[in-house]
C-alpha cells in the first residue's frame, strides 16, 4: 500500500488545496519500503492532487484541512483520509502505519514534547 502526505517544509501542509509538495511512502508488511518519495507539484489545486492520488494508487492520505467535496470524493474512491493532522509528516506516517493516527491528531516529535514538559 501507499501513503501520501501533503507537505509544507517537513510538516503536514495545513491545507490540501494549497499543498505544492507531497510525500509518498510505500508500505510493505507494516514497514516503510525504501526511501519515501518527495514530489513537487506544478501548482496547488485539489482536483489535480486528487487525480494524482488516484493515479498513484494511494490507499491512505494524511493531510491538514480538506474541503468536504474532495474528502467525500476520495472516500468514495475507497481511499482513507486522515485530515486535520498537524505535525511532521514522517512521524505522522509512522503513526498511521501503527494505526495510532486519527483525524485532528497533533503529532509532536520527542524534542517538541520534552520542550513542552
Amino acid at each position, binding site marked *: 500500500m501507499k501513503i501520501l502526505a501533503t507537505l509544507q517544509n517537513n510538516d503536514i501542509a495545513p*491545507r490540501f488545496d494549497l499543498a505544492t509538495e507531497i510525500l509518498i511512502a510505500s508500505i510493505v508488511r507494516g514497514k516503510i519500503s525504501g526511501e519515501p518519495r518527495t514530489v513537487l507539484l506544478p501548482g496547488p489545486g485539489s482536483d489535480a492532487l486528487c487525480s494524482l492520488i488516484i493515479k498513484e494508487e494511494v490507499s491512505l492520505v494524511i493531510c491538514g484541512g480538506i474541503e468536504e467535496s474532495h474528502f467525500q470524493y476520495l472516500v468514495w474512491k475507497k481511499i482513507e483520509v486522515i485530515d*486535520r493532522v498537524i505535525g511532521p509528516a514522517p512521524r505522522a506516517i509512522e503513526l498511521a502505519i501503527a494505526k495510532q493516527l486519527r483525524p485532528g491528531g497533533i503529532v509532536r516529535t520527542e524534542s517538541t514534547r520534552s520542550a513542552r514538559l
Partner: protein
Amino acid sequence: MENRGNENFCPDLIEILNGVPHGIALVDQDLRIIMMNRFLEALTGYSGEEVRGIYCDHVLRTGFGRNVQVFRQSLDSGVACSIEGDILGLNREKIPMRFTATPVVERTGGRQALVLVLEDIADCQKTGGKKEAGTAKGLLGHSPKMQEIFELLPVLAHTDSSVLITGETGTGKDILAEAVHLASRRSKYPFIKVNCGALPESLLESELFGHVRGAFTGAHADKHGMFQLAQGGTIFLTEIGDLPLPLQVKLLTVLDDREFFPLGSQKKVRVDVRLITGTHRDLKQLVEVGRFREDLFFRLNVLRVHLPPLRERDGDVRLLIDYFLQMFAASFKKNVKKLSSRALRLLGGYRYPGNVRELRNIIEYGVNICRGEVIDIEHLPPYVLADAGTPPRTAAEAVAPGSPLSGGPDEELPDNAVSWSSIEKRKILTALMQTGGSRTGAAKALGWGRTTLWRKMREYDLG
C-alpha cells in the same frame, strides 16, 4: 487598584474572550499560538491548550501560508491591520473571514504578541444579500409542504427546545438545522455538526464529551468535546438513530442536567447548548425493537419537523433546476443557459431517490458535460435516461413496467409493487444483479454514493 498577575494571561481574560462571538487568537512573534478563545476552538476543532506553540496557519488552516507578510508588518510597525481571506473549518467548509491583527506588548518584559480576530464575512460576501421568498438560508421551495416548513422556522428558532428533523437522505436536514441555528439568538455562537453514525462508540464519546490527558492511550492533552466547543450555540447530531445505547444514556443526562463528565475527568463540565437532531430512520420503530431508548426519544421529539422527499414537493423541481443551473454555470464559468424541453420533461418525471442532493448532482453533471448553451437529454447522467418513461408521482404509476431505454436498474420493476420502499428495494437488487454484485457499480447506476447504498441495503436487510 492592584493589578495582580498581569505577567501571565490569567483565566479571567480567557473567560472574557470566550464571551466574544468571533474567533480570537493570541500569537507570538513567530506567529505561534499562545491562546485562543472558545469560538476559535469550535471553528478549528482544537483546544487552545493542545495547540499552544504551534504555528497559527496550521491551526487556523488559512490560505496565507506561514509567513503572512501583513501580520509580520503589523508586528514590526506596531500598527493594526485588516485583511480578508478564508479558513477551512472543522466541518471541512471554506469560511470567508476578515482577519484583524493588533500588536500588543507586555507591560513587563516587553515581549510582543499579536491579537488575531477572525470575523465570519460569508453573509457579507453573498451577492445581493437579499432573502428570496420561499428560502431560508439554503433551503429553497415554493411547494405547500416547504411553505409549511418555512412558516415553522421562526417558531423553531425562537425556542431552546430540542428539535428532531426527519426525512429521507438528501432532503436537506443539515441545511434546515443550520437555518434554525442562524435564525436563533444563538446564531453568533458556533453551530457544530456531529455524525453519530460515522465514528465507533469509543471515539464518538471522546468526540462529543471530550477527554482529559491520560484518559486513554494517545490522550496526550486535554481535549474539549463538541458539546463544549458548541458552548452558547447549537449542536446538531445527525444520524441520531445510529447513536450507541451507552451514549444514549449519557446524552439523556446532558439534556436533563446540562452537565457531564469528560472521559477520564472527575470534574463536571456545565454547558449551555441547544440540541438539534436528525435522522432518516424511524426512531419510534427503533424504540420498539429496543435499539433506541424511549425516554431519549421523548426528550428529542419535542419539536418534530419532517422534510418531504423531492417527489412530493410539487413544482420545486423546476425551481431547484434553475437555481443549480445558475450556480454551477457561474461556478464552472460555462455559458450554459437553460435545459431543453425534452430534458426538463425527463427531469420533471424522474423520482429522485437521492432527493435534492441527487438533483444537484444531475445538474452539475449536465453543466460539466454540455459544451453549448442548452443542456439536452444526452448531457444528463445515463441512469436518468434509463429511468425515462417511468412516471414518478404515485406508487401505482411508479410501478408501471420499466423504461423503453434498456439497461438501467429500473428495467424490471415489479408490476405488483405497492410502496416506495419495495420499489427501492427492488431497484437495489436489480442494480446489484446488473453489475454482477458490485456495490460500487450498483451505487453508480442508482446515482447514489456508496455509503447511501450501504445504508439502504442495511435498512432493507440486503447486507
